[in-house]
């Protein structure tokens, strides 16, 4: 049976539609925990998507290049400093009333909480498939990422590692009696994890945002009114959309085509 309605957009229009869909998606937020070496890292992250250029590939692939992922991360590390515990020995000192000897005082170092805010962006390129669905009386056409591409996190991981180091140093300075142990503490902590661990943590967080990434490019009510009621005798006229299909058609130029039956 012939399709009742066909709508098509070329790549230029598809770019416009994509960018509108990115804005509509807004900022996504997630929380979770991971690890950096021996340290547990709690995190809160948010991400939004901008830019990118669309290439339509028949029969049903929407390829997006240079999609910008703008993300912010708030990392909270708990660092147990008990490996620095030591005792101040007894101090014996002359006083006018005899020699006073203080008791040995043992200093135990706490677990410090280090918060690291971090924001940057990365570009990714990926293929998206086209998914049509009817949900709650609404037809929806989504483009859904087909697989998580390799994320280039080298520069970001380096910056994040630097930010973590700075935050740890600042947190350590506030710990009483840490002064003589500052270099030891910093060395032990920074030896516990490096760029590989930071890259792994960052990758695991960003994958949560990218995996299943979906942009909603078209929606329409399944039933919609085409003519209002005209009292007293003429009721409103509604149209029922019975099916929607979507795909990429390659002709003189590639187009994203929507076929609608009513």
């Amino acid at each position, binding site marked *: 049976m012939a399709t009742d309605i066909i709508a098509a957009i070329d790549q230029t229009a598809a770019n416009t539609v994509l960018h509108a869909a990115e804005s509509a998606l807004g900022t996504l937020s997630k929380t979770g925990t991971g690890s950096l070496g021996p340290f547990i890292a709690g995190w809160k992250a948010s991400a939004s998507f901008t830019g990118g250029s669309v290439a339509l590939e028949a029969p049903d692939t929407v390829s997006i290049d240079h999609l910008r992922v703008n993300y912010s991360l708030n990392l909270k590390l708990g660092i147990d400093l008990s490996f620095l515990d030591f005792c101040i020995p*007894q101090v014996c000192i002359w006083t006018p009333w005899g020699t006073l000897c203080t008791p040995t005082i043992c200093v135990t170092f706490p677990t410090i909480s280090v918060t690291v805010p971090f924001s940057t962006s990365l570009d990714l390129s990926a293929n998206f498939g086209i998914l049509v669905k009817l949900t709650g009386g609404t037809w929806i056409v989504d483009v859904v990422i087909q697989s998580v591409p390799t994320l280039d996190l080298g520069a970001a991981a380096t910056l994040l590692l630097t930010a973590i180091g700075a935050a740890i140093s600042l947190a350590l300075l506030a710990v009483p*009696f840490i*002064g003589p142990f500052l270099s030891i503490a910093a060395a032990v902590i920074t030896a516990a994890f490096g760029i590989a661990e930071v890259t792994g943590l960052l990758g695991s967080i960003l994958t949560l945002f990218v995996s299943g990434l979906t942009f909603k490019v078209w929606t329409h009510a399944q039933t919609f009114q085409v003519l209002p009621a005209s009292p007293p005798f003429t009721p409103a006229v509604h149209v029922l959309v019975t099916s929607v299909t979507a795909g990429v058609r390659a002709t003189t130029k590639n187009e994203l085509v929507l076929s609608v039956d009513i």
Partner: protein
Amino acid sequence: MNTLDSRFVRLGDCFAHRFSAAGTFRYTLSVIPSAFGAHHHEGGNGPTVTVTPASGAPQATHYVTVSAGDGLIASPDRVTVSAGDLVVWSPDKSVTLGFRVRGRIEDQVVDSGSMRTESIYTHAFGSAGRYQWRDANGSPLKGEIRVTTPNDDHEAWLEHLKDGALVHVRGHQAEPKSVEITVGQTVVWAVEDAPGVTVTDVTLLPRDGKEDSDVGRH
């Protein structure tokens, strides 16, 4: 933690007193620096130091550890000493707010929050900086402690921690007025013939309403 304030004896601090005359020192342990809290249990079954007449034996030092449980607890809560002995009170890790020792022996008041004579306050400094201190009870007594960061020779540093520095307070004069130590070292204030003084970091005290060139921050 590690705040310089003899009104609150915290981890890293000690308060000591030399009991010169025989008698019974009944005292309270309080977290409240004012006199109100100190009088609350006086005369009851609180901790005591019983001072017996001098026996001719060498001076001894007796240690009382204060812990936080159901209130502040002295351990041992009954100490018997000879006249001339020292008693040293110090907290364990459970004491977070600090404590004050206050009591009476015969007609003499012994009070870590208002030291008069034969009283000692010690403080181990945990952070480098310049600490200006004065008497929170309003006398002109004041001084300065400069705390430096040690070099990387940890063995030498740990050994150096055994060396304390003495500040002898007579009346409202401190000698020396300025002391330099390394992080982790202990300063000992020996208070003699004073009008009831404290050793308190000036940053903990209200400004006195006039420009004070001695007010400093570490």
